[in-house]
């Protein structure tokens, strides 16, 4: 029997998609900027980390400590990557949205 996967919230999906896009360069700044560039939503860095913490607790995302730079005041970066369970949950959530909106394009676009 297939493992049951959680449906993700919209912010969780957006953050996971940003991680997939950014690959090995995914950390707080790049994730925030990528989301702002693609969705027009200017999220707070606190909201990004809160979401990443939630995803990490579910095992959908893992993190490692990266390099520190002078412009960061000597503070280390934290790089994130999507795990296999995260990709599975993302696919399931996207499929659910696709299934629910199938055949509704005209109606959704008419209003």
């Amino acid at each position, binding site marked *: 029997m297939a493992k049951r996967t959680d449906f993700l919230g919209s912010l969780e999906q957006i953050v996971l998609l940003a991680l997939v896009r950014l690959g090995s360069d995914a*950390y*707080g*700044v790049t994730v*925030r*900027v990528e989301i702002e560039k693609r969705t027009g939503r200017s999220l*707070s*860095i*606190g*909201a990004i*980390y*809160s979401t990443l*913490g*939630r995803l990490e607790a579910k095992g959908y995302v893992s993190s490692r*400590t990266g390099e*520190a*730079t*002078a*412009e*960061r*005041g*000597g*503070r*280390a*970066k*934290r790089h994130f990557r999507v795990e296999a369970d995260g990709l599975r949950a993302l696919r399931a959530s996207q499929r659910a949205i696709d299934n629910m909106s199938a055949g509704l394009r005209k109606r959704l676009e008419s209003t």
Partner: protein
Amino acid sequence: MHDLAQRWASRLLERLLPEDVAEALVGDLLEEHTLRVRTAGPRRAAFWYWGQVVRSVVPVLHTAFRRGDWVLAWVVGFVAYSFASSAEMSARDSVALVATHTAVDAVPVLIIYLGTIALGAYVAERVRAGAGLALGLLVALTAVLELVTDAHDMPLWYRCALLIAGPAAALAGRTLLARWSRGAPASRRRRTVG
């Protein structure tokens, strides 16, 4: 170079968050701020920085509570708050026996209350991560209620001072524990770069 206000804002976030998250989050803020100083100018960058800090406080608090098992954190925080409130009431009764001037009486009561809050936050945080923060929020909430309802017989300055110094005392107690448990202040352990 970041100004004093920005450093304080960063420290506030560092106090609220677990160390591993705080280091990365504040580092990200400083990195993007430096970029924005170059592209948009120092004033707009400072405005952006403060907007980020203010908007980050709620999700950051939420994360801090979740990490520390928030139900237990609130219970422990409430016990510590009850202990601090009892100390305040006892102090008020004791001071009332020897003095009569309300404004003067309030000074030792406030000192005792703030000391108990700091001690309570220290102990609460030892028992459960996030409990010191819960205590600070409870103190802030009751201080606001007392200001609005005017239910206390204490002077207005006392209630205003409590609103600011109460949560600060709880944060100080929490910070004390963090520093002692790490063995050295975070600033001393931070690696120096560039």
